[in-house]
């Protein structure tokens, strides 16, 4: 994609560094009240990273507790609260908003050649709704905690003597944060594309965020009403989920999964988008099957609305429904497989740069293949009856959520870190951290696949001694994984102090986000860009920008 924008900063040589979105204004309010999508993206990044670290600490506590068959650290009640906190923080506060909120906000308008998102005020409101939701969730811990698991299944969530209303309302706010982000990105993609940037010239990250946004807007309101109804149950016994009052707990499961299965794709589609960008940039080769990749993102978004029943194969739903949901679950594997194959085909015979973003990407490709295929296993009716509610399911969705989505988030973070801040982190440490995370992750969850297939039920505070060896392996893996993440946090924060300058175009990207000065100026482009070439056309790459350090 070539443009009429000069790649190198247009400012004349002066002693002080050029104005960008980071140094253009100072003070607390210039951040807290900002309408700039890049600053909002940074605030999201800080927020979701803190949530990830909190969720990670809860995960380590869970793993440490399970070192001994009878539990090492907590009472059973406390254990229930800790794994619920881990799930709720990771799913609602970290994974769902992480990539759209931070990297999506940062990169999407840049990739579209826009000055900002279409609705900047709504964007800031999204962020504060996220803060409010997180605050209520944290408040729930103080108010006595919650032990329902992140799924809040009725009727237990209606009866338990804990702070379910607070966390429920927190999730309602987080839901609207997600809705408004998605709404904003849909409008931005439709209306704010630069001249010449046709739909099939958009980078695949934009396609992925767009498909995600459709899900966010159309699925999340159902979660909103579901958590409201749970709150109403607790406040005035509306009764529709309460079997004592003629209600049906399975209706709750339908409502919950009608959102929460599409939510899996709200989480994973942005990760797909990041990986699509990174395989092409770091292989310096156009993406294989571009249009098919764009359509498969939309296909996943649409089909994902129709598979929620596969979470309920043991709930007693009709045989026909089971058959349909199982078939559709297999069916969604097709566009997903198209993506995996296209990524691999993109790398094939590419000029591969094995830098840290690419290493995270390769780790993703391996882990996601396992995560995706074990999903197909669980989609088979008879197999699922055996594996339902076991560690096999836990391992499967961690291969998708942690191993794939969080790793893609890390990959994107390493990829756009030099763009965001104009500085580079320590590449050697980054590669070590990536290796630790990859090894630690697999060591944590491969034993869980085995345990699960042998019948270890999920969410139990204790277990039979036969599983002790697997639990030891899993806990050791979690500690390795945790140390990898700790190392990553260290060198990323250290890079902010060391301030080793990055290059203007650190990796050799040719999409618009790499064609504006690094870090970008307040309104992104010195002159409005226009696009004249196809997407990922590396013949247009300006090699000078790869050697020009940020001032």
């Amino acid at each position, binding site marked *: 994609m070539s443009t009429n924008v000069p790649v190198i900063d247009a400012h004349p040589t002066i002693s002080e560094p050029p104005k960008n979105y980071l140094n253009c204004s100072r003070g607390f309010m210039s951040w807290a009240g900002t309408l700039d999508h890049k600053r909002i993206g940074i605030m999201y990044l800080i927020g979701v990273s803190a949530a990830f670290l909190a969720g990670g600490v809860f995960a380590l506590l869970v793993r440490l507790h399970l070192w001994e068959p009878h539990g090492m650290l907590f009472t059973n009640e406390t254990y229930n609260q800790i794994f619920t906190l881990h799930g709720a923080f990771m799913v609602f506060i970290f994974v769902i908003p992480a990539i759209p909120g931070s990297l999506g906000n940062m990169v999407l308008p840049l990739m579209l050649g*826009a*000055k*900002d*998102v*279409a*609705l*900047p005020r*709504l964007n800031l409101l999204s962020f504060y709704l996220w803060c409010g939701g997180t605050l209520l969730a944290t408040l729930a811990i103080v108010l006595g905690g919650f032990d329902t698991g992140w799924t809040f299944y009725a009727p237990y969530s209606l009866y338990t003597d804990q702070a379910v209303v607070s966390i429920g309302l927190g999730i309602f706010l987080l839901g609207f944060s997600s*809705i408004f982000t998605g*709404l*904003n990105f*849909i*409008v*931005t993609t*439709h*209306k*704010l594309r630069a001249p010449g940037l046709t739909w099939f010239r958009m980078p695949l990250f934009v396609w992925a965020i767009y498909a995600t946004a459709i899900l966010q*807007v*159309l*699925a*999340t*309101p*159902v979660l*909103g*009403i*579901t958590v409201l*109804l749970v709150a*109403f149950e607790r*406040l*005035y*016994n*509306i*009764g*529709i989920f309460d079997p*004592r*009052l*003629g*209600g*049906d707990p399975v*209706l709750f499961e339908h*409502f919950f999964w009608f959102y929460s299965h599409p939510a899996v794709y709200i989480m994973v589609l942005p990760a797909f988008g990041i990986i699509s960008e990174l395989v092409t940039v770091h292989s310096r080769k156009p993406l294989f099957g571009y249009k098919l990749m764009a359509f498969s993102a939309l296909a996943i978004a649409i089909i994902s609305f129709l598979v929620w029943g596969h979470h309920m194969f043991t709930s007693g739903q009709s045989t026909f429904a089971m058959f349909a949901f199982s078939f559709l679950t297999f069916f969604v594997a097709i566009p997903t497989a198209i993506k995996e194959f296209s990524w691999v085909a993109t790398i094939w015979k590419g000029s591969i740069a094995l830098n840290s973003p690419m290493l995270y990407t390769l780790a993703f490709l391996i882990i996601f293949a396992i995560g995706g295929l074990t999903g197909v296993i669980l989609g088979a009716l008879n197999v699922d009856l055996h594996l339902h509610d076991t560690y096999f399911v836990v391992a499967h969705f961690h291969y998708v959520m942690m191993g794939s989505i969080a790793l893609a988030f890390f990959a994107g973070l390493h990829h756009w870190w030099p763009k965001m801040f104009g500085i580079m982190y320590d590449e050697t440490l980054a590669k070590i951290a990536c290796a630790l995370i990859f090894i630690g992750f697999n060591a944590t969850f491969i034993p869980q696949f085995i345990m699960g297939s042998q019948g270890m039920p999920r969410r139990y505070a204790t277990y039979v001694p036969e599983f002790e060896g697997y639990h030891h392996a899993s806990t050791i893996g979690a500690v390795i994984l945790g140390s990898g993440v700790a190392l990553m946090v260290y060198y990323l924060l250290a890079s902010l102090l060391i301030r080793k300058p990055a290059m203007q175009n650190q990796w050799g990207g040719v999409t618009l986000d790499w064609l504006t000065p690094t870090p970008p*100026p*307040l*309104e992104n482009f*010195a002159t*409005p860009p226009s696009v004249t070439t196809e997407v990922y056309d590396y013949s247009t790459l300006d090699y000078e920008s790869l050697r020009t350090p940020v001032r």
Partner: protein
Amino acid sequence: MSHDGHHSIVIPAPGPEFVPHTVAHHFDSPVQEFQSMKLGFWLFLATEILLFGGLFAAYFYFHEAFPETFRVGGAQLDWRLGAVNTTVLLVSSWTMAMGVRCAQTSQKQKTLMFCALTLVGAVAFMVIKFFEYKAKNDHGLVVFSELFSGYNEATGQLAWFKDYDGVMANVPHGHMFFAIYLTMTAIHGLHVVIGAGLIIWIMKGTAKGRFHAGYYLPVDLVGLYWHLVDLIWIFLFPLLYLVP
């Protein structure tokens, strides 16, 4: 003036009683701004419909599960009051549409008048709704003072459902109809109140001359919101008052 020396686009006021509109800095044209806002608002309305969709799904599920409860429960509602409220909202949708039209043609006084009439409709709707709730309260079908007093597992008694006249005595889970009726109409009523607040905000802006032929977007969007509030009631009225 915005950053980097780009000049903002200003839509001039059509007359001295109006104020010009400055297009937000990140848009290239007034049309782009208008279309973006409108698309965004339609998407928001879609989320509202899906939010109510959950309630409608619950309605249909329990109507199927306990048809007798819904038949007898529906008969306790006063369809005449419901019909009056339906008429009130339909007329207010018309006055709102007229208000939008008058804003588009820079007729300040008429815009104010039609918005005020819509507001009257909103208030009338809520007043009628109040008397309907009061009747339910008096018959013990929804005892508001004990709404949050819980459920006694030992006696099987729901604090807010007393049914003084015993009208629901012979149907299973008699409270279920009223729980759904209350939840749906209360959330709808909340939307009416929010809509009324938005109309007041629009009237303030109109009085200041902010809305005219060159820029009437907020009036347009509040109009859309009000039509949605009306539309949801168009479904609630027959389902709750007539179908059973």
